[in-house]
């Protein structure tokens, strides 16, 4: 088991290095550079700025300097926010994305399991149809539509009560995170519901359930121990990547609800060609994703004893 974990971690480091290199090459091949601005710089001023950021060095040198700094965990200074370290940007804004993300994942997982189980129990009956209708909706409607619509509903809700029931946008309290988290988790919840439903159905019609029933095991025990526990396995598998995807993919929700998360910096950096922030956020997100996958793989061994035999 330890050897397995170590091997996976080593693979992860190589993957992250690959991500860093690919991003570096892609980024420098995009026309334009971070120093271009509305007002053209004189060659002298430009040279001064280039020297400041080390952009006057050959690309290969820049790459090695970059890798060296990366190994020391230093992503450099942002081009657009000249007084801020990329490390500071990540440290200040990732917790926001993470909090929102964790809540969204919990929503998604709890909702997905509950709705999935419910639809399986009521297969091909009215509750199943109603829930599955919303599931299809949740999967197919993009988050920017859901985000905008739910915000308009909040405005209407507040004007109906004549006071702020739930804040329309912003960040800081429990009420601010409720709606954004639900919107952010909606897609994943819908996906997990479907996953849970099919895996539950498979379990329900399997032999050991019939055996358990015929043995006279109490229905509550069958449901919890035999059905839910087995059916939940595939959900746990996709949960790791889902956490990473939700935590890193909240850009739209963050913009709409004015949440100061990292997703906004990630996208704006690409638009602004802010080299250091692009590299910083990409490598950070990449590493995060890789790490979550490894965590799930390792955890899987605990949940499903058959895994660790291999």
């Amino acid at each position: 088991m330890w050897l397995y974990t170590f091997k996976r971690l080593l693979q992860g480091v190589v993957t992250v290095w690959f991500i860093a290199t690919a991003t570096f090459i892609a980024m420098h091949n995009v026309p334009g550079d971070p120093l271009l601005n509305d007002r053209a710089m004189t060659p002298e001023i430009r040279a001064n700025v280039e020297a400041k950021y080390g952009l006057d060095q050959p690309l290969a040198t820049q790459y090695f300097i970059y890798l060296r700094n990366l190994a020391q965990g230093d992503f450099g200074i942002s081009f657009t926010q000249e007084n801020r370290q990329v490390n500071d940007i990540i440290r200040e804004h990732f917790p926001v994305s993470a909090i929102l993300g964790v809540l969204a994942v919990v929503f998604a997982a709890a909702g997905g399991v509950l709705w999935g189980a419910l639809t399986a129990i009521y297969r091909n009956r009215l509750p199943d149809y109603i829930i599955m209708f919303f599931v299809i909706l949740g999967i197919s409607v993009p988050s920017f539509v859901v985000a905008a619509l739910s915000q308009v509903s909040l405005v209407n809700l507040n004007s109906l009560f004549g006071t702020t029931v739930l804040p329309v946008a912003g960040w800081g309290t429990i009420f601010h995170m409720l709606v954004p988290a639900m919107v952010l988790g909606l897609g994943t919840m819908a996906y997990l519901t479907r996953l849970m439903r099919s895996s539950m159905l498979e379990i329900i019609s399997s032999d050991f359930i019939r055996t358990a029933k015929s043995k006279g095991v109490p229905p509550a025990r069958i449901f919890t121990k035999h059905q839910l526990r087995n059916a939940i396995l595939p959900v746990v598998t996709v949960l790791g990547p889902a956490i990473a995807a939700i935590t890193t993919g909240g850009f739209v929700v963050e913009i709409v609800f004015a949440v100061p998360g990292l997703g906004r910096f990630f996208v704006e950096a690409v638009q602004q060609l802010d080299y250091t922030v692009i590299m910083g956020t990409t490598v950070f997100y990449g590493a995060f994703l890789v790490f979550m996958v490894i965590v799930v793989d390792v955890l899987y061994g605990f949940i499903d004893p058959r895994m660790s035999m291999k």
Partner: protein
Amino acid sequence: MTKPILIANDKGFAQSAVKQLGLYAVCTIMGLAVLMYLLSLAAGNTGGGSGISGINVDDNSITITLGQEPPQLDSGRATDAASSSVLAHAMEGLITYDQNNQLVPGVAERWEIREDGATFWIRDDAFWNDSRPVTAHDFVFAWERVVDPITASEYAFILYPIKNAEKINQGELPKETLGVHALSDQILEVEFEQPTPYFDKLVAFFTYYPIREDFFGSTNGRYGADADMLLYNGPYMVTEWVHGSSMLWEKNPYYWSEEKGFLDKIIVSYITTDVNTKINLFKDGQIADTSLVAPMLPQAMEQRWQIDRVMDGTVFFLEFNHREERITSNLNFRKAMSLAQDPNELVYKVLKEAAYLPAQSLFPVWVQGVSEQFRKEYPPREHKIDVLKAREYLELARQELGLDEFPPIVFLTGDTPISLLASEYYQQLYLENLGLEIRIDAQIFKQRLAKMTSGEFDVVMAGWAPDYFDALTFGDLFASWNLNNRGRYSNEEMDKMIRIAQSELDPLIRMDAMGAIQSIIEEDVVLIPMYERGVSFVVDPRLKGLIRRIVGADVDYNYAYIDVSED
């Protein structure tokens, strides 16, 4: 024979399972509540904190939004609108603008501009927020720092009228040789490189703001990076700054003027680019004002809001690539393209933004001439769409260029909804009227700039926002030496006129030169004017004195106050 039992249809089992599930659901919700509580405690450390409401009468405070996080508040290096907006509330230069965009004394109580230089007398009641006086030395330090190559200030060029500034910036002279001296704490003496009659308008720009040397030294290179890394001399001071999230501006008790800074607090609670979010916040009474875009106008009218409009100062135009190898370097071709279009149609039928004006010239409608509007003193040539004549010019161009058929015209544009809409309109228009094929090249900001700079276009949809309140901020755009002249237009007569406009002290001769610049642009079809941008906006009726500006801070809350007397 055993019949298979369908468990899913087993009613008793289903009921028990649902009961069980319900139990789990209740547990989950309770768990969620605890989790959310814990998370909100954690979130408390990541900032945020929203205002109570848009207008808070008890607190004498308002809540507003910023479209973007200010990259930094270092006046010497700032370049963008968000920083400029915050700085205009927190700092003050020698001269500033009043409610009617007229120059009024700021830190300087009076000044004198001569042919060879200028003198500013600094008021003795101007203080920093640590109670020490603002002196002439603070300006000398700030300006020397801007032109110092080590600072790498992108706006250093705006100080080039000062003696030796350009040479210092190029590293040829030490920064101490800059033509600016503090004769005493109160008197600031400036030497010019060449006569600069509009210098009073320049010093209102944020790059000219003062910085105190001892404080700057104490920030260890982090000047302007955080709320406590800046010294304030404006009506408000930034007391809290949670990056990307919120700011708090509080009234600066040491500010000298009685006419600014009536609010105790301005809470910048939301930083978001999303206009829909802002209008929702405004509807909910969470913010004091917001800008509107065209699709929102019906909704705003339905709410019976008082909608105001104002020009934001920026002019948009189709800029031709005048490099020799391009088709657009042919004058008849440009004439054809100009005659085949009509900016009125673009603005009123295509863009339909209520606050936009069809542009008639490079010089926008608000520019001042000698004694009144520049446009009245030097009216631009009237433009009429004439497709037949346009086709004649196009035929002439075809012969001159020796072409059988025109290749597709590369039309470089931005990726915003407005630019895409406009470029698709032109694509259709030129195909119909002239049979020209337009190939739209839509690029994001930096890529568009890269292509503009390297000349990879025939026509580019460009805009120009003013830096200072003088016609020259537009007038020198097509000087052959101007780096922002990205189509590389070059004309000796134009250069001559620009030199006069830059250094002539007699306002009449100077504006005549400006008029000549306008005529050359028309004669030579250097560009096709598109529109002057404006904004529609709404303000909470209880907030008075809010100013939208063409140059400087937009939105300007310096003169704003809460008035609940009238309904």
